[in-house]
């Protein structure tokens, strides 16, 4: 088993794979009648492909790649709005590098930068704050993007800007939350899901209880998981054991980093700065109720939507997704990336057509990057 060299602890990997195989047999899952496990987090999607876990685990397990890559679920309309803000002459637009290549209707941020907009890739919203301090005559806008893991960073930054009385700093808020899309997927009658591997770094902030509704209301197990390959195998095993035993619970595989109740300081900062939007649009999934956050009126001075009269502040808007792009079907697990007619042809990581091809956390990019190189030896 050459593949096992890849693991930090090949013996442990083999032992876990053997246990997984045994439980899959006990459940009676087969390639024709597989157990469907959704890994929610894009980091997990990347790790699954990087280590070929989809090939190493028995054919009776089918991974469905969830909506947990913030770049991948960013709707076109929001990219267009970014470009619109960034093209204002007084603006320095700051963003995480991941978002640069997401296609918009007219152009991506990358193309807007090439066309002369002052767009800067930063590592942290704190870099954007510092730019605002150093450039008092410019408007510095930070593109706030990400799930609960990232949301505290912009909340703390806005609080800091308020304390300093900075007037030339604002956040274009696109923060989204994990539980609502999971609920939307579970409510979709076409979706067949038997259990979840949950994002550990989200729970590091919010704890494990926001997922209580999954076993309680839908009778499905969820395991909060770390992203090391052994964490993932362990978590898959825990999901399978619950299914075999007829249990449905929230279990914490990543307790060494994830406290049951999350991080109190981060939760308090989020609650102080943000409130849920009535609804927010997800690429491929449409509008989902209370799935996005907006800046509370008390911090309206730091809300780029208010400052520039853009986005949801400008009223409802509809933007069509690109024709021939199957991102929505891939995102809901109804289609494999390779079955999208654009895959590897009109759509590649170098020239992405859909957002799932943009970052290594997107299912299409992960397939493309690792599809040929995945280990082919079956699990023993």
């Amino acid at each position: 088993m050459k593949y096992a060299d890849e693991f930090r602890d090949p013996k442990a990997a083999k032992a876990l794979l053997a246990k997984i195989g045994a439980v899959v047999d006990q459940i009676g899952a087969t390639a024709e009648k597989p157990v469907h496990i959704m890994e929610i987090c894009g980091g997990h999607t990347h790790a699954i492909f990087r280590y070929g876990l989809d090939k190493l685990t028995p054919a009776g397990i089918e991974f469905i790649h969830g909506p947990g890559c913030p770049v991948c679920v960013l709707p076109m309309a929001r990219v267009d709005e970014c470009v619109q803000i960034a093209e204002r002459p007084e603006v320095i637009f700051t963003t995480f590098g991941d978002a640069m290549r997401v296609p918009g209707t007219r152009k991506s941020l990358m193309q807007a930068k090439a066309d002369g907009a002052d767009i800067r890739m930063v590592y942290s919203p704190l870099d954007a704050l510092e730019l605002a301090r150093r450039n008092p005559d410019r408007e510095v806008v930070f593109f706030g993007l990400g799930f609960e893991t990232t949301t505290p960073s912009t909340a703390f930054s806005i609080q800091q800007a308020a304390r300093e009385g900075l007037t030339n700093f604002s956040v274009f808020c696109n923060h989204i939350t994990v539980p609502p899309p999971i609920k939307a997927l579970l409510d979709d009658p076409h979706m067949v899901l038997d259990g979840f591997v949950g994002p550990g770094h989200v729970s590091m902030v919010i704890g494990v209880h926001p997922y209580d509704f999954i076993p309680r209301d839908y009778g499905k197990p969820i395991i909060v998981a770390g992203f090391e390959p052994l964490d993932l195998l362990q978590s898959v095993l825990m999901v399978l054991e619950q299914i075999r035993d007829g249990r449905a619970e929230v279990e914490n595989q990543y307790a060494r980093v994830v406290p049951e109740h999350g991080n109190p300081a981060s939760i308090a900062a989020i609650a102080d700065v943000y409130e849920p939007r009535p609804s927010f649009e997800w690429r491929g999934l449409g509008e989902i109720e209370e799935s996005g956050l907006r800046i509370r009126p008390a911090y309206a001075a730091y809300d780029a939507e208010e400052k520039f009269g853009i986005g949801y502040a400008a009223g409802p808007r509809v933007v069509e997704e690109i024709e021939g792009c199957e991102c929505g079907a891939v995102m809901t697990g109804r289609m494999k990336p390779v079955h999208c007619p654009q895959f590897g042809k009109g759509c590649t990581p170098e020239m992405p057509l859909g957002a799932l091809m943009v970052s290594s956390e997107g299912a299409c990019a992960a397939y493309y990057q690792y599809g040929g190189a995945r280990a082919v030896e079956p699990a023993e």
Partner: protein
Amino acid sequence: MCLGIPGQIVAVTDAARMMAMADVSGVRREVNVAPIATGPIEDVVGQWALIHVGFAMAVIDEDEAAKTLEALRGLGEAQETLEAMAAGDAALEGTQ
């Protein structure tokens, strides 16, 4: 983009702003420690933390830090994060 990188807090740099210097894989980077500073801010010095977009999000032990770093290297994320940090510095200087 939701993964953190382990770093060790080496000094408090600006207590009022909750800022401290972290050593991330040999690279020095100022980070905000508000999420982990539950007591006096000096107490974070010497601790290992998972650092995400400039914020120390969770305290971890040294062994966990080493394992996490290895997993990040395997995914190519460690290098990406260090590059993002360098890009952030360049953005401040306007040299991007």
